[in-house]
């Protein structure tokens, strides 16, 4: 008789609504499925933003799934009207793009939070945010954004989309229309026509590079990143777009970190590093470490760390890592 009761108990454990093993498994399955869909959407968006298109192969690579499962995933997503296939290319639909933007927003807001408030090391935040970005509503993200002071960029400098799925507006200029000798960052490289794209890549230019124009003639444009010179024909160079550096980057170019100020030097604070946000930045500002303040090291420690600085008449000790985030110019 006992085994019947045992069987009954087993069935009960398995089929109990909501908390049974089967129900838990289904919950897990659907959460996993949702994560897969969202990761796929992110990949598609990522590809579209760099003006390439995703393919089933690239998707299989990024999700680390066998081709059969990827094919099934693509069919699923097509039926949900999230993407459409054009030949071998996968394109996001408007609905798919909206959802993808939502995930990107969740990811970058979480990165901001983890870096600023939870003080997690920068190389750890991406994976942690990857785990947390799923399962948040728009309203929850609005709350998070408000609590963080409406950040516009994540800790890596990438823009955080708004609730409506718009990226903060960045004005881009073809490099041919840029002034000589003014620093700029490459924000876009046009991949059509392919022959020009090939030449740009062959010259060694890449996205995110900081460059300036050092020579411009009707025959060629010479760019420099401070070490290497890149020569392009003006027609080719027109496919490279740049944007002004954030003012913080410009200011940093002529400053040194406080930590490398020597004992007999005095410095004037230029700015606090962009990487310092949230709690730490508030603390620095509270102590009077504002731009324009004169500061100089006064007391060393026999272990080299921390060091005490005289600022506004008071003596404040800072660790090397903190002092490296305060940019000063020697005076």
């Amino acid at each position, binding site marked *: 008789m006992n085994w019947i009761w045992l069987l009954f108990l087993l069935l009960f454990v398995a089929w109990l609504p909501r908390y049974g093993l089967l129900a838990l498994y289904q919950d897990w399955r659907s959460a996993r499925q949702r994560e897969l869909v969202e990761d796929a959407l992110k990949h598609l968006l990522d590809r579209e933003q760099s003006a390439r298109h995703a393919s089933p192969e690239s998707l299989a690579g990024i999700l680390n799934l066998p081709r059969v499962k990827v094919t099934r995933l693509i069919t699923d997503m097509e039926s949900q009207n999230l993407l459409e296939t054009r030949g071998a290319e996968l394109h996001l639909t408007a609905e798919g793009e909206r959802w993808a933007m939502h995930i990107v927003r969740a990811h970058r807001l979480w990165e901001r939070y983890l870096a600023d408030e939870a003080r997690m090391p920068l190389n750890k935040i991406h994976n942690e945010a990857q785990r947390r970005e799923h399962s948040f509503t728009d309203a929850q993200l609005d709350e998070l954004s408000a609590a963080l002071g409406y950040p516009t960029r994540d800790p890596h400098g990438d823009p955080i989309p708004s609730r409506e799925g718009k990226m903060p507006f960045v004005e881009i200029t073809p490099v041919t229309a840029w002034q000589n000798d003014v620093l700029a960052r490459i924000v876009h490289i046009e991949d059509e026509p392919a022959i020009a794209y090939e030449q740009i890549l062959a010259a060694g230019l890449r996205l995110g590079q900081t460059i300036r124009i050092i020579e411009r003639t009707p025959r060629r444009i010479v760019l420099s990143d401070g070490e290497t010179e890149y020569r392009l024909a003006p027609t080719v160079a027109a496919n490279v777009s740049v944007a002004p550096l954030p003012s913080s980057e410009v200011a940093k170019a002529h400053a040194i970190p406080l930590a490398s100020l020597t004992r007999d030097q005095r410095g004037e604070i230029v700015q606090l590093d962009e990487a310092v946000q949230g709690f730490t930045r508030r603390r620095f500002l509270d102590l009077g470490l504002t731009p324009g303040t004169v500061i100089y090291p006064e007391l060393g*420690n026999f272990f080299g760390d921390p060091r005490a600085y005289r600022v506004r008449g008071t003596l404040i000790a800072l660790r090397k890592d903190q002092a490296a985030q305060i940019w000063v110019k020697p005076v």
Partner: protein
Amino acid sequence: MEANKILAKAETLRGTLSTGFRDEIVKSLYSEAEAIARRAVKPVEGKRYDFDQKIDRLVTSPIAGLPIMLILLGIIIWLTVSGANVASIALADVLFAVGDWGRALFVQIGAPWWITGFIWDGVYLALAWVVSVMLPPMAIFFPAFTFLEDLGYLPRVAFNLDWLFKKAGAHGKQSLTMAMGFGCNAAGVIATRVIDSPRERLIAILTNNFVPCNGRFPTLIMIATVFVAAAFSPALTSFIAAGTVVGVVLIGIGFTFLMSWLLSRTVLKGEASAFTLELPPYRRPNIARILYTSILDRTIFVLWRAMQTAAPAGAIIWILANITVGDSNLARVIADWLNPFGLLLGLDGVILLAYIIAIPANEIVVPTMMMVYMGTGTMINGPGTSAGIFDLLVNGNGWTMLTAVNLMLFALLHNPCATTILTIYRETKSYKWTVISVLITLGTAFLVTFLTASFARLMGWV
């Protein structure tokens, strides 16, 4: 409707703000403050920081810095332990005399024996014990500590030691809360308010208990004197005992770092938050204020909390010792029942029982142990001499060197007293962290004593 329009407008304008606008706000606040200060405050001509700088160079120098720190800490602890000893005995004499007088009065008016016993041998005795053991050391330690604080020396200690704490993922100011813990762990936990970053503050709170407080020193000193120092010549006794206690304290500090390191890499993972430490100019200490803050804010405050928890503990101890079960009392029965577990940890049932009823105040651990060992109905000091205590524990109750060592380790590592637990809850406002603070310390104590006991048995030492 208007409000919504304004909000919507603000929403669109927010996007156009530059990232540094908060910095600009603070900057303008500071320049406004500077302008006001320039109008109102006249700087003394030629005032420089030369003298302060000289002292700073000295106390943070590689050769003099560490010795100065250790000597100062040594002086404070020596003052506390030796000075408190005399005062404690005098205070105990007075308070116990009052107890005898009260008991006599109750007997005279014909109160039943159990009322007399409960009130005078239970509640009052525990209170008198806690006050006489706790008050003198705190009344010496806290003013001495506050003196260094007022002088402006303490932040320099944090400055000197920060590199060590940084390695453990903690904050340099934790050195100050640890030093405060020598006086009282509850006061140490309150002192963590000086650490402004939440993560590092929590680490300091959770590990503060690994520094033995005044209440635990008597136990350590007793064991060190009776067991360790007895093996050496009488002339060396006090030195060996002091050395042993210092050794135990160092083990505790070692556990503080180890646990800080573990916490900052597991549950409290994260990068070191802003380390900012103000080094104020040296000031002439204000003696009146020192006495006021250290006696009222710290000593009386802590003592009051301890008395609140000691009174019920005294009642429980008296009940346990005076309810007879068969031919022994309830305390003995519980101790026998706890014995197998105690032996596993290299301790015994009586020690565990003493630690359970002494959760309110560690000061009464030794008297409770003595009470159970000697089968009396009230807490007592035990035999008057070291040799007498040695005889009672070793020959009468089967103690070995392992019991002595493990008791010292257990006294160092075990859970915080009730006052400290309560304080941890008040400071963290979280049941979770309060429970964790108890589990961490108790778990460490069990684990370490179990390992030493097993190791000693494996090597055939006991």
